[in-house]
């Protein structure tokens, strides 16, 4: 706060307070004519012939005013109010927030400490823990994977039995903690459009769908030379590398011919961010159990 605004605020506050004190004290007594009978004394206001008696207010009323003034003086000394003067109490909204966060953290800690001791398999069966998991998932994972964990275009479905990197508690934990980077290189420039179409037709045939056998057999050689290293000779994928299984009906992206051809031609890059830096170990433990429970209940 600049010096001008400091003076401005302090001046206004003190001026107003002083004004209020003056108004209160200057109006404690009023002059009346000695011959006025006290019971006939009116305020002098006349409206439609109705007059108002000028009876004194009770003294405690005056004392209440004094009380508020004393309170405001103490307030300005203890709390920030006079410009940049922080007040003797040292209160700030940030400190209050920290205190409340600390209180919430302690409450949380007790619960998480208990959950951390439970193995994933057991935790996944715990009703209360899984309800907490729902909310934790909603806050941290749902934006990409959907509130139900059912995935989205380009974001894997976590609620089925199909896993890119493995669905054991250990693997899920590893994925959450360290993240994953899945890369499908672009083959378009290397293979040329004809071979891209052939490989696409071969991949379609792997899934057992209706296909052009001649085109597919042309793609088989290309597949074995270039794709089998990651996706396996039979197309069943490789969870160590995160290479998807091409023989099932689960597609992370578009599973149509055009979609597959696009993946082969231009490649795909997928990142699951590492949660290590963002979430505490106890939370990752609970989330692991929750994600694990999603596939259990299918």
């Amino acid at each position, binding site marked *: 706060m600049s010096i001008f605004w400091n003076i401005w605020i302090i001046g206004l506050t003190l001026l107003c307070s002083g004004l209020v004190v003056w108004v209160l004290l200057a*109006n*404690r*007594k*009023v*002059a*009346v*004519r*000695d*011959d006025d009978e*006290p019971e006939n*004394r*009116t305020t*002098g*206001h*006349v409206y439609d012939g109705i007059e108002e008696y000028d009876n*004194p*207010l*009770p*003294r*405690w*009323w*005056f004392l209440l005013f004094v009380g508020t003034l004393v309170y405001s003086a103490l307030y300005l000394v203890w709390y920030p109010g006079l410009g940049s003067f922080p007040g003797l109490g040292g209160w700030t909204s940030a400190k209050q927030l920290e205190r409340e966060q600390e209180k919430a953290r302690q409450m949380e800690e007790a619960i998480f400490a208990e959950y951390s001791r439970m193995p994933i398999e057991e935790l996944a069966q715990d*009703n209360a823990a*899984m*309800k907490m998991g*729902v*909310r934790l*998932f*909603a806050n941290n994972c*749902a*934006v*990409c994977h*959907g*509130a*139900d*964990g*059912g*995935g*989205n*275009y380009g974001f894997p479905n976590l*609620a089925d039995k199909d896993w890119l990197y493995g669905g054991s508690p250990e693997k899920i934990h590893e994925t959450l903690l360290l993240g994953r980077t899945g890369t499908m290189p672009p083959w378009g420039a290397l293979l040329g459009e004809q071979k891209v179409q052939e490989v696409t037709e071969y991949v379609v045939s792997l899934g057992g769908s209706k296909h052009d056998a001649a085109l597919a057999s042309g793609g088989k050689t290309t597949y074995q030379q270039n794709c089998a290293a990651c996706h396996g000779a039979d197309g069943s994928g490789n969870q160590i590398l995160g290479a998807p299984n091409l023989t099932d*009906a689960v*597609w992370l992206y578009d*599973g149509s011919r055009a979609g597959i051809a696009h993946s082969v031609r231009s490649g795909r890059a997928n990142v699951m961010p590492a949660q290590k830096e963002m979430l505490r170990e106890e939370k990752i433990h609970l989330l692991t159990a929750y994600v694990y*429970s*999603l596939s259990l*209940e299918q």
Partner: protein
Amino acid sequence: MSREPPSAGDDGKIRYVNLYEAEAKIYTRKISGFYQRIRRYTGLPLILGFLLLPWFNINGDPAVLFDLAARKFHILGITFWPQDFMLLAWALIISAFSLFTVTVLLGRVWCGFTCPQTVWTLMFISVEHFCEGDRNKRIKLDKQPWNLEKILRKGSKHFLWVLIAFITGATFIGYFTPIRELLLGFVPHRAASGFVYFDIHPVAAFWTLFFTGMTYLNAGWMREQVCKYMCPYARFQAVMYDKDTLAVHYDPKRGERRGPRKPGDDYKKAGLGDCIDCSWCVQVCPVNIDIRDGLQYECINCGLCVDACNTVMDKMSYPRGLIRFTSEDELQTGKTRFFRPRLFGYTFAVLAMVSAFAYVVAARSPLGVDVIRDRGARLYRVMGDEIQNVYTVKINNMDSRNHVYDLELEGDFPFTLKNYHPREVEAGEVFTLPVRVAVPRAQLSGEKNSLKFIVRARNDKSMEAAETSVFMGPGR
């Protein structure tokens, strides 16, 4: 228009008046009679009810507990949640209208007979009377210098006042926190180190002591000043009065000219009315007015002056009712018109609101449902031949039992539910339930389709609630 203030030239004729003055202390004379009995016999069950209600339990829940920390109100076996706040507003509106109805008919009987301010004030005055004696003795006691007797009398009065105030305050807070734990908290413990401590939540202790202090101040010291300067109802109910409203009135036709006389005198011949000007009606008045001056805003219709005057009339062998509950109309024309359009209007409004309120409470479903469509990167998901939408269903179990809920969909297309994991929802819990809804692409025509979620308790099919949301699709 304003009167000119006195100028400096009026020297000698000006005096200064304090605009704030300590109010004169009111010493009321003790009186018994018909209206005092009415107050006692209507007040006793109300006070007993107030004192005992927090101690009862219904099915393990307190009969009445306004649990602010858990945000739920238990009232006679029904649990109310913040979502029911509208009901509280309506209950208050109904109470206000009932008060208006009663006021039109009987004047300020609420003030005189049922308002806690009056009831507690009169209770405190009884204690005062018990410790310090009646009006004259109290005036004398206040004037005399401090001695042992004065200390004992005053001390015992304040001790009893504080005791009553504490019982009142603790009972009141007993409506907000379980009363047994609260009272146990005021039992001192002695730690091993010798320190005395109390096992009580500071917030509960603060509010109990706060209401103890307020009861002591209001009923012991503030008394009629609360009615005169603080209570808004006291001031605005004048507009509800009409000339047929019953109120405490002095009958000037019968009473005037007032004056003292000897028993047996032919006072009528002397031109006197029935009022012997004994001023008992003023001495018993808890707001210190003279009812013979006519209807005044301070009058709370407590009927003390009626009982006092009737006692005097009996002594004088005059007929009762010189001061009585009557109406302006009756004093002038001899008849009160009880059936008035205004009264019918109020009564009808109250009855209509009470019926509607009773219906809403009875038909209230202890199940709340909210459906929030997932706001992901995309409006909807195309998965093979299906269009999918994701929803977060919030199920609010406002029942006192735990439930598992079934979810059913209703819409114009063959919607199917996926990833629904039912769980037991505890009483009072808001359960977050993410689900996915799918529909074959070929069968969905609209971009924006209505989809109704019906939630039903598995063990009580009558417990049902529904919420309509939107299912987004690519359209045709």
